[in-house]
């Protein structure tokens, strides 16, 4: 059984079709979502997390149709995400950012320090969140998402702003999360990360699903090379 099914999702902005009849499935493991800029990746994340209503199509989580549910209801069903354009709570400290997320799910605020250590930004705990480096802010969004104990984690370009060593540590963290039985969807431009850690990759181009497959199948696919990998 798939964790997440996206069925025939279409998103229109006036005349422009940002996502056109996309269907895909996500299982436990790491699923890559790649494609050139403007392919509709982030829009699809917005649809899955409930921030945007699709013009057509359904979103199904663990056999439950969640298309009509609001973002906070989806969060309670186990969907969490990070943002490509950062959405940390800039007026709060890094620690408070995680505590807000824990409290919203009625979990103990004592877990916050552990979560910050897990993603590797404990040193910033008492800094105001809009003052930390971009890489740390991305990891903060990850810690905040993990604070809701999600079964489906949507990560939007998490590695931008991380150096090589940090990216490797992040990859290992991905493996751990999958080991805990979570499904992770990764929108990423770092192909080493995508090819090294994903079990399944979906390729979007101009709002349409170009192809799906394992990393090696994607690498071999003609259309993908033309559209994206070059």
């Amino acid at each position, binding site marked *: 059984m798939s964790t997440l099914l996206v069925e025939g999702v279409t998103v229109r902005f006036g005349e422009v079709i940002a996502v056109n009849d996309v269907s895909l499935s996500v299982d436990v493991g790491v699923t890559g979502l790649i494609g050139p800029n403007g392919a509709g990746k982030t829009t699809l994340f917005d649809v899955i997390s409930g921030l*945007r209503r699709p013009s057509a199509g359904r979103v199904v989580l663990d056999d439950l149709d969640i298309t009509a549910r609001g973002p906070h209801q989806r969060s309670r069903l186990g969907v969490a995400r990070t943002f490509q354009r950062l959405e*940390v709570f800039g007026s709060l400290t890094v620690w408070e950012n995680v505590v*807000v997320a824990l409290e919203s*799910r009625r979990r103990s605020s004592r877990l916050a320090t552990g979560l910050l250590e897990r993603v590797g930004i404990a040193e910033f705990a008492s800094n105001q969140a*809009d003052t930390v480096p971009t890489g740390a802010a991305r990891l903060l969004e990850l810690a905040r998402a993990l604070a809701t104990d999600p079964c489906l984690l949507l990560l939007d370009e998490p590695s931008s702003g991380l150096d090589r060593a940090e990216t490797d540590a992040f990859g290992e963290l991905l493996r751990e999360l999958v080991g805990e039985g979570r499904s992770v969807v990764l929108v990423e431009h770092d192909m080493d990360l995508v090819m090294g850690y994903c079990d399944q990759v979906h390729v979007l181009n101009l709002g349409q699903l170009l192809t799906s497959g394992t990393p090696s199948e994607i690498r071999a696919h003609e259309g993908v090379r033309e559209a994206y990998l070059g």
Partner: protein
Amino acid sequence: MTALLAYTIFGLVTGGAYAVVAGGLVLTYSTSKVFNVGHGAIGMVMAFLYWELAENRGLPQWLALLIVVGVCAPLFGLLIERFVMRRLAGAPIGITLVAGVGVLVGLIGVAQVIWPPQARPVRPFLDQLGVHIGQSFVSGHDLVTLVCAVLVAAGLYLLLNRTRTGLAMRACVDAPELAALYGTRPHRLSAMSWAIGSALAALGGILLTPVVQLDYVTMTLLVITAYTAALVGRLRSLPWTFVGALGLGLVQSYAVAYLPSSQFWISFRAAIPALLLFVVLLAMPQSPLRIGGVRGSRGVAVPTGVATGVGAGLFAGVVVVLALLVDSVVAGQLALALVFGIVLLSMVLLTGYGGVVSLGQFTFVGVGAVTVARLGSTSVFSLLLGALVAAAVGALIALIALRVSGLYLALATLGFAQLMDKLVLQSPIAFGVRGSLQVPRLVESASAQLLVAAGVFALVGAGVLAVRRGRLGRRMIAVKDSSAACATLGMNVRWIRVWVFSLSAAIAGLAGGLFAQLRETVAASDFQLFNNLPLLLFAVIAGVTSVSGAALGGLLLMLLPVLQSGFPALAGVAVVLLGVAAAGLARDPNGLVSWFFRAWSWRRA
């Protein structure tokens, strides 16, 4: 049938004048993204100036009109753009709103100093001319108004759609940096739109003077009608703005003609623009959760529980000493300052922490005051009941206005304040139109009043700080910084907003009860819409993010009328300075008190 025709013509004429004003508002908003709350005040001052030239100095009407609309108003628009609004481009909505309120209050101050209150009749244009259509008479002034409206509509349309400047103006809204790269000069375009916008405000104001009297507040608030029309066009579309303005003119005209003339319906008529503002806002599509960018603001450091206790203790000591030393008049005034301080505490919660700008906070004070006054006996119990009723009203308005946020929410609170004033506070169940209510005092002597007010202020202040340190405070700030992230973390953003609104309204309602029993006589005019504007202004000037800011703001609010009665001219100057200060300080929501804090920490360092 002839009556219908007459009222239709009258409605179209008034609507035409509204359209001129609203067109200017849309033009400035769509090119500078600053919503000018002071738009109506510009029209007001320019109408006074026109009176000065045409009636007082005896210039020909056309020359006066030309000087005011063609020279003075555009120059004034340029000045405002250059020295106030340009610095605010891209600033959060609360800040631009406060700058506009500063301009508004400053302009009213100017008008009061230069033109002290007296009757100022203004001759209509072309009063010897006129046309009979059937049995109804269309005066020359009406014709001039209609012609002006048509010319303005056509002119704006041509400017925006048929000229390079107009194209550049429209490009600047979407991406000023990009437009600059292609050789346009966003500042120059923005300046131009402010010049034209001010000229239109002046023209509309002058055209309306024979209909409404030349009065500071009435003319300034006439702009509510212009807001409503502009909102019909979603602040972007000029054609829809004109349709909205004409529609409003017609609705008002028909209301005069066909609604019964009992007291309630007279109040209802006055409330029509606000009611329509509300309806239009509620019909707007739901604002999507904003995504993108880190938003953070640095508040003044939040004291710990121990520090709060020590601070409250010190405060209590100072107040007790004051209560022993000062005479009863000063004690009464200090008590009033602290009551205002409590109102400002409600804004610390709502605006300072929650980031919601309310232009209707004084209305909740009125609800608390009415409740206590109607109960007829003052006790701790009735004060709490007043707070509870205000909280219920606050929750109601939050639920109704949940769909909108930012600027639209602020305008909704403005509409709400006007509605409550006309339909509830002035109704027989509350104060009555010109009525007032007697309220027995909780404690008799002025020094005891001071102690009571100080006690409540300390309690509420400590409570507000406790909220800030706790779970609800973190959530409020999180919602302010990123409501989208909050939603994806499982928070029901709407309910948090309802909580914040009703908690803040409860504090304001509590202050209202205290206010009523301190004053002993309260009337609807104590809580009218206009009182909300100085409130927001002082909140921001003194500091809307801290308890000490609320105390300072309360003191300033209390001093303003004292100054006004003692030295009217000086008070006018003070109001102008306040307006300028707000516009300047608007960038720093922590206000004056944060300067003291900074000076203090610098000394210690």
